[in-house]
């Protein structure tokens, strides 16, 4: 049983460490990139890589914590549920925010190479 706990520790800590790397990359991108839409790209890195991977890591790590009793399954269940909620709701929220910022001309879209939407694709 102890070796199995060590396997859970290893997988959980590995996932949390990889996720913290993605979080640092996404934070530097949100802080340093010049435009709103480029910052949105960096947000996707920090959301999927930096939030979902560490929550999965915490969920796996909490299975191996024998000294917490049966309350460790509470942590596992809530982390898995929040992983599914983030995976469904965060891309839809980012997409609606980008669509609103594009259509209302609130954010400047100046470092721009190709704009397919201005060629009559989305005229309604």
């Amino acid at each position, binding site marked *: 049983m102890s070796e199995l706990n060590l396997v859970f520790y290893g997988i959980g800590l590995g996932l949390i460490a990889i996720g*913290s790397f993605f979080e640092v990359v996404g934070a*530097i991108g949100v802080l340093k990139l010049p435009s*709103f839409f480029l910052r949105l790209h960096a947000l996707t890195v920090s959301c999927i890589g*930096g939030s979902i991977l560490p929550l999965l890591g915490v969920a796996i790590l909490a299975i191996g914590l024998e000294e917490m009793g049966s309350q460790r399954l509470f*942590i596992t269940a809530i*982390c898995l549920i929040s992983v599914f909620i*983030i995976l469904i709701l965060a891309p839809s929220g980012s997409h609606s925010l980008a669509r609103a910022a594009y259509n209302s001309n609130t*954010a*400047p879209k100046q470092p721009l190479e190709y704009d397919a939407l201005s060629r009559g694709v989305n005229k309604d």
Partner: protein
Amino acid sequence: MLSSVLLIITSIYVVTALMYIIRLVKGPTIPDRVLALDALSFDLAVFLALLSIILENPILVSGVIPLVLWIHAIDIFVSKYLEAREMGE
């Protein structure tokens, strides 16, 4: 060993939260601020989960689900207001 590694990773998350707060204060337009708030709350969700592992207190992790649902509500409300200039009812 487990606690020290988790403390280092939690301090990394605190530093990235400070970077998001800088963007939240400095952001030139409204969607930038909402974007920084979005990233900040996902960051805080992971921070709460790590804190409940470190303190061995499983009641802390139950705030993660309302936090995530709340940031989706913020996204939808702000984009609705930016696009149609009304909150909708």
